[in-house]
């Protein structure tokens, strides 16, 4: 039975493979990429073009999202000149930069710990990273509210021990939003860095120590540059996600991020041109910041292999 299905499967593969092999190299590559290209065109490029088009439309009459077929730069002017969108952008980038810095720093230490551990400890550390990924983002983010709010577990614990007289205002607040956001992106940062560290030879660190580098120095001189491709991936993931964060600042923060504002403008206020213009501005700003981060980080490490 299984032999039979195997035979059919391999037969099918062969039928598909043969004409593919017959093609020239570049055509074969194109053919193999075709499903992904089609997917991206349908799911990303086409909607993005529609979004771009809406962003240069006039605001709609009462009850409509935007005026179809019209052209206007008003939305961009509004985003770039008025106070509120600028505050939203600054707030989003603040969360993004702080959460990224913390996630990457903690991620590096944690990945290093996994790399150096062996046996049961290693499995435990790895499992602990993956575990939060098994719970939905909203549930685990929401769990911080009873934990960190002024009347929450942490504050009552600290008060009962006598360390605090007035409760810490973590949630809702910037600190709470950042804690929640770091918790969301940390597993990805850890795994991105660990995947690179795992291929590294511990002997390089030994060689550095043997030549007189202290423990912290050997990590800085050898481990960090070697792990840089992973650190860059971790930075890009953490940053892109955190700037665009919605759940953590919504549930734990006290200020509006760009994702929250876009949602409000689209679903509540029916201001699609301003919402889409804000999105386009944010995408452009993030591309600039991420390119700058990658350029700076690449300087510190070995070549990033974009393979």
């Amino acid at each position, binding site marked *: 039975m299984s032999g039979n299905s195997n035979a059919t499967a391999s037969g099918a593969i062969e039928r598909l493979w043969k004409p593919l092999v017959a093609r020239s190299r570049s055509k074969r590559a194109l053919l193999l990429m075709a499903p992904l290209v089609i997917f991206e065109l349908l799911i990303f490029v086409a909607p993005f073009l529609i979004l771009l088009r809406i962003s240069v439309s006039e605001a709609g009459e009462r009850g409509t999202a935007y005026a179809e077929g019209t052209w206007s730069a008003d939305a961009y002017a509004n985003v770039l000149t008025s106070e509120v969108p600028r505050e939203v952008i600054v707030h989003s980038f603040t969360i993004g930069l702080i959460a990224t810095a913390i996630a990457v720093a903690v991620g590096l230490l944690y990945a290093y710990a996994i790399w150096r551990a062996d046996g049961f400890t290693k499995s435990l550390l790895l499992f602990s990273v993956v575990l939060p990924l098994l719970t939905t983002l909203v549930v685990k983010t929401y769990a911080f509210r009873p934990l960190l709010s002024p009347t929450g577990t942490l504050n009552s614990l600290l008060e009962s021990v006598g360390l605090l007289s007035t409760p810490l205002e973590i949630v809702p607040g910037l600190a709470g939003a950042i804690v929640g956001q770091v918790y969301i992106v940390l597993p990805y940062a850890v795994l991105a860095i660990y995947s690179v560290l795992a291929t590294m*030879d511990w*002997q*390089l660190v*030994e*060689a*550095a*120590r*043997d*030549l*007189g*580098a*202290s*423990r912290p*120095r*050997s990590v800085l*001189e*050898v481990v960090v*540059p*070697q792990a*840089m491709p992973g650190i860059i991936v971790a930075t890009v993931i953490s940053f892109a996600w955190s700037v665009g964060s919605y759940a953590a600042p919504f549930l734990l923060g006290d200020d509006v991020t760009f994702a929250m504002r876009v949602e409000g403008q689209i679903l509540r206020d029916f201001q699609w041109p301003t919402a889409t213009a804000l999105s386009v501005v944010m995408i452009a700003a993030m591309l600039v910041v991420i390119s700058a981060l990658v350029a700076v980080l690449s300087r510190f*490490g*070995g*070549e990033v292999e974009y393979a």
Partner: protein
Amino acid sequence: MSEIELSGLEKRYGDELAVEDVSVTIEDGELLCLLGPSGSGKSTTLRMIAGLTSPTDGTVRIGEDDVTERPAYDRTTATVFQDWALFPHKTVLENVAFGLRMQSTSTDERRERAREMLDRVEMAEHADDNPTNLSGGQKQRVALARSLAVNPDVLLLDEPLSNLDKRLREDMQIELREIHEDLEKTFVHVTHDQDEAFTLADRIGIMADGELVQVGDPHEVYENPKNRFIEGFLGDTNFLAGEVARTTAESVVVETELGQEMILPSDGDDALAVGESLTLSLRPEVLTIGESPVANDADPETATVADGGTTNEIVGTVENAIYRGSTVRYSVAIENSSVFVERTVADSGAFDAGDDIRIRWNGADVLAFREDGTRVDL
């Protein structure tokens, strides 16, 4: 002074004893080879000298200082690793200058010194290359330069030549020897290759199962091995099982598996009981071979001539001949056993399978070992 003294050094991983009670003094300026099969604890011993592994017992002294508790970066040793461990994101020059940078040497000075070291190992033209693009031999040279750049008191080499091909390895052995003579530093070199140990070493320390079995100059350990393991490990030999048949004032007569008695001269220092089991070692270089005499004896297969007391002779049939380049090795069937002998290609008198061959040796060249592997002092 950079004499190294290891005393009672032990490394235990859980229940497993990797290194057991290693004690040796390595003299200032000496090149000691730690030789042993893989898993014998030689690399672990080296790592304990380097400070990369901490011993579970015993002490390491370098010069006047007890460095047992000192981390690697605080020791005056430098290690050349088996896989060379060059920093892949640094240029060759930066690799060599690394140790000096850790010592906060000024940029100009460390550049100059690094170039000097690269010159010494003939790698100056590769100073700005990425080490990952170098060949094995070149990496090895860079690793050596990197370790020498910090001007260590002790250079530790952990099988740095084992990943090179034979020709390159032999060239590097000579070069290492020259560098050692130039620098007059203490070198500890770990290898599993006895030829390499014999080429390089002032003294060889042979390790087996975590223990340092014997330390001595190459001649001594080869000619005068302490036990059967060393005899078997250092070059090829024929081990023959036997039993003491009788002892006289100046000889021991052993009944061997070759089906004949063998006479070993003895001054009777070591008491042997009749009937005691022994293993005899007949190295191919002590065996002289010749054509079998005309078959005038009743049974030429087992004919023995024991003239003058200790010359032994035996006749057997060549089973096969293996051409090994400069030598030919014959496997010779005698009784139910077989012995191998060698002839250099230049010598006259080739044998073919099926030929009778006469093997002769002096009983004084035969080493005998007890059942527990210890050497019998004949």
